[in-house]
């Protein structure tokens, strides 16, 4: 059995790294979160136990040049992983416009042992195939670290969705076939472009952290059983899609519940809930 891994979690309200009220307000403003407040790691444990989830991938976001701060820093991710290494995997982030971006990444991968990189093209205002990104992709390949990109719709007021369209990642997938990349949020609403990327490029994955406008069950059914063909997950895309929730915006348990309600083969569900993430994250025994 594979682990159950939620690959898309923003720990913006984890109590141990949420002591500064001004910082909380910064996070809320820049991640477009609102009526949420800090909570202890014991609650996260309880929620994971209830949902039968083994691991959460924690994602920071570096907005140094555009906003003068982070929506959770790499250091804070390390703090949480040290606090509960049995339940957390930590990713790094870097603002691509930083002059010291490579130093930040080198430190994150070499010293902090973070497992991958999170980038948000819309929020960080860059096109994935911008030449300035090459050095970052090459650093990820050097350390064999995958990248999760936020893609598709952004909830934030101050960023443009044009940066995060799924086809923007095609030049990256072609130029860096050894770089594992994830189109976050399924690239919703551009889900057919995402399907094409998943079909065409072995190094491209996607995660299920979309949203729901009705219920997790209804939304997942509409996307994966009606808008996509009924057998697309079972027959074509089941090796490339990973469970992600976008917690705290959406609860891990609810998105998992929506996935579990799909009429797909049990082995496909197991891959989506964790098997694919194990491969993406490099956890598989080689």
């Amino acid at each position: 059995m594979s682990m159950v891994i939620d690959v898309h979690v923003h720990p913006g309200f984890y109590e141990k790294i949420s002591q500064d009220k001004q910082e909380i307000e910064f996070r809320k403003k820049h991640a477009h979160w609102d009526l949420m407040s800090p909570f202890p790691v014991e609650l996260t444990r309880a929620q994971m136990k209830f949902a039968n989830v083994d691991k959460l991938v924690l994602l920071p976001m570096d907005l140094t040049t555009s906003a003068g701060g982070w929506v959770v820093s790499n250091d804070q991710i390390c703090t949480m992983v040290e606090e509960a290494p049995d339940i957390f995997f930590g990713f790094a982030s870097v603002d691509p416009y930083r002059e010291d971006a490579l130093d930040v990444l080198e430190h994150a991968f070499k010293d902090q042992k973070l497992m991958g990189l999170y980038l948000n093209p819309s929020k960080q205002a860059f096109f994935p195939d911008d030449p300035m990104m090459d050095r970052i992709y090459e650093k990820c390949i050097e350390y064999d670290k995958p990248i999760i990109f936020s893609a598709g719709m952004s909830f934030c007021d101050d960023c443009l969705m044009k940066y995060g369209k799924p086809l923007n990642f095609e030049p990256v997938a072609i130029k860096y076939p050894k770089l594992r990349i994830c189109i976050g949020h399924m690239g919703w609403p551009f889900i057919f472009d995402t399907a094409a990327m998943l079909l065409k490029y072995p190094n491209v994955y996607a995660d299920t952290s979309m949203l729901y406008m009705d219920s997790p069950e209804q939304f997942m059914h509409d996307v994966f059983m009606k808008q996509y063909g009924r057998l697309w997950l079972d027959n074509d895309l089941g090796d490339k899609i990973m469970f992600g929730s976008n917690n705290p915006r959406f609860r891990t348990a609810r998105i998992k519940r929506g996935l579990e309600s799909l009429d797909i083969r049990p082995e496909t569900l197991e891959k989506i809930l964790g098997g694919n993430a194990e491969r993406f994250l490099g956890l598989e025994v080689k």
Partner: protein
Amino acid sequence: MVKLTTKKVLSEKEFQLISIREEVIKAVEESGIQNGIVLVMSAHTTAGVMVNEDLECLHVDMEKTLDKMAPVVADYAHSHYLPSYGATGGNAPGHLKQMLTGYEVVFPVIEGKALIRFAQDIYFAEFDGPQLRTYYIEVMGE
């Protein structure tokens, strides 16, 4: 005189009845108030406080009955994107179950003790867990 006690509880399931009877008895005894009332109240809109008998079979019946009245999946108007939260409302059943069971209970306080009968257990009733929750025990009297 009024004596307020604020309590926290960590629920572990989406639906969970957590006995708080002993906490209420203790708060009344420690308040020093001899005659009056004690109010026990949830601080939330998807978790309540209720009184019923502490029998496992009844807990099952309560959960199943409430689930029939407010099922997990239904066409809830509340299930839409809420800009004020930055999230989609996903807990309409919790709101409705709390409305059905209530969010507070009151007992008389006589000679320094809460007048709670044998079969009356007091529950913090979680309908949207797991969550870290707050409830109040307020003793009022003389």
